[in-house]
């Protein structure tokens, strides 16, 4: 959802417009009222967002094992440690593999579902609801079903039952990292859970494409099907596609819930950046300094990705931004 954010940065609506009419405005002192309305939020924002971020940056330069009020300044040692002496870089690699799997597949599936649902004339609301419903399920509940029922590594698991009909031996999907079957489990789970959400975004965008474009294309002799899709639908969806890819990337960076429950932090494989931070800062070592350094690195990476992608893909300049 933070896609909107970047666009807000790119083109903030001017507040100044309302300043032209102070005398015609509502009764009461505007400045006082401004702080009355925004005060509670801003105080909370400072305490629970700005202070933790600042504290975290401060901690990342100190030897903060087992303490959050350290006194020993150690410069960049925490950064050195988390980048060379821990599994954090490996987790960034894991994330990249995950993103390579999940971003294109979710994009394609949600767009495909949107195109299908958009063509329905009967029972359209029903099918839309069905595809949207998994969004209501938490990653924890989904992980539970995936781990204990569908991809349970034993005989009675659904996948093994179905493969058993074709004479395939039992597969230990999650317990054995080679071959890495666990990616099938993780990717299918996230696909199921989030495709419906992005389908809604694509549906809204599809309905905004002017019908005249298709009529003009038909007159020009474009064949319905692949041609109109390639030269009309897809370009018209550019802004939405960009936003979806961005949202998916940022979400993938922050993956934790299903990895934590499917793989667990005890495993040596498929650990995401957040899981490494969790173990570093809240595990046995309680190293808040190194954990904070990792959090700073991860935040910077996410900011960079967001900004770079916004720049490359022309965010906010898409056809749909009106």
């Amino acid at each position: 959802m933070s896609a909107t954010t970047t666009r807000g940065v790119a083109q903030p609506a001017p507040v100044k417009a309302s300043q032209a009419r102070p005398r015609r405005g509502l009764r009461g002192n505007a400045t006082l009222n401004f702080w009355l309305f925004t005060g509670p939020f801003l105080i909370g924002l400072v305490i629970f967002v700005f202070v933790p971020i600042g504290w975290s940056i401060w901690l990342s330069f100190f030897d903060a094992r087992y303490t959050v009020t350290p006194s020993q300044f150690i410069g960049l040692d925490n950064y050195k440690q988390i980048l060379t002496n821990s599994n954090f870089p490996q987790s960034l690699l894991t994330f990249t593999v995950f993103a390579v799997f999940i971003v294109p597949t979710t994009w394609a599936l949600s767009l495909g579902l949107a195109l299908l649902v958009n063509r329905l004339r009967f029972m359209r609301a029903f099918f839309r609801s069905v595809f949207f419903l998994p969004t209501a399920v938490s990653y924890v509940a989904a992980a539970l079903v995936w781990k204990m029922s569908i991809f349970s590594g034993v005989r009675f698991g659904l996948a093994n039952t179905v493969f058993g009909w074709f004479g395939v031996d039992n597969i230990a999907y999650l317990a054995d990292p080679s071959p890495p079957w666990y990616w099938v489990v993780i990717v299918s789970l996230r696909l199921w859970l989030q495709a419906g959400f992005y389908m809604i975004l694509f549906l809204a965008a599809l309905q905004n494409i002017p019908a005249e474009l298709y009529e003009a294309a038909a007159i020009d002799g474009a064949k319905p099907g692949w041609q109109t899709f390639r030269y009309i639908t897809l370009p018209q969806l550019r802004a939405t596609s960009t936003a979806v890819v961005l949202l998916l990337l940022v979400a993938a960076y922050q993956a934790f819930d299903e990895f934590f429950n499917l793989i667990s932090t005890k495993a040596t494989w498929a650990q995401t950046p957040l899981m490494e931070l969790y173990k570093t800062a809240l595990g046995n070592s309680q190293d808040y300094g190194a954990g904070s350094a990792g959090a700073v690195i991860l935040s910077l990476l996410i900011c960079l990705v967001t900004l770079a992608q916004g720049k490359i893909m022309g965010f906010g300049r898409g056809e749909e931004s009106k």
Partner: protein
Amino acid sequence: MTTTTPRVGKERRRRGGVLGNTGLYVAVSVAALLFLLPFYLIVRNSLSTDPEITGENWKILPSFQWSNVSELFDDQTVQFGRSLWNSTLVAVLMTVGTLLVCSLAGYGLARIPYKHANKVFYAVLATLMVPTAVTFVPSFVLVSSLGWVDTYRGLIIPGLFSGFTCFLFRQYFLGFPKELEEAARVDGLGYWGAYWRIVVPNSLNFFAAIATITFISGWNAFLWPLVIGQDPSSWTVQVALSSFMTNQTVNFHLIFMATAISILPLVFVFLFLQRWLVQGIAQTGIKG
């Protein structure tokens, strides 16, 4: 067969004919069955006995063990009722609190003329660049030094100040009809009175959309409750479910019954509030 939009015109539809439509509905039905499969598994397993779940032969219909419900709630070691209550309280209070705090701030930023309003707005926007999930380590440090570990305060309050929700409210209020506020001015209302008597009652659809989204994310949140809930008595449903997965003593049928019950409220929210939800996502997800 790739498709575009139904607005292409009747001609194309006729050409597609009965066959094209049948193919479309077959495809969409197969996809729908796959999407419903996990729900079926949850319901089937939750109403089965353990031997039925782990049996060699796949049973399509369970034996409808409704006693699983009472067995789950009577199990003192699991304390599922307690987690359910925690989740309800957290999700409801979080929704109410977020709506109150963020909508007021959004209105202030959008509609009250103050010369530094833009600077304040940029400060709010800046927080959106840092994803909340990444700051859980420093947030935990802060909350634990306040002594809020294992408390409702610790679970709820840090989540109330969402820059993103505030931003959404601001965008929404920027488009709120000025004429309605004019009416409030004629009535001699101040900002506060106008907000509660005119603006809020005329924005209920938007509030409902944001409330639905906030409630769902509050109910489904996992990382923060996991970090804050050190003692089982302060676990939310999600943390409890997660603990069942690693706990060897809890039975299969109870785990799935717990899962079914944890999903139930949200399925209801989805079915009855979907209109607002879809509207909210379409409005806020992309357009801002």
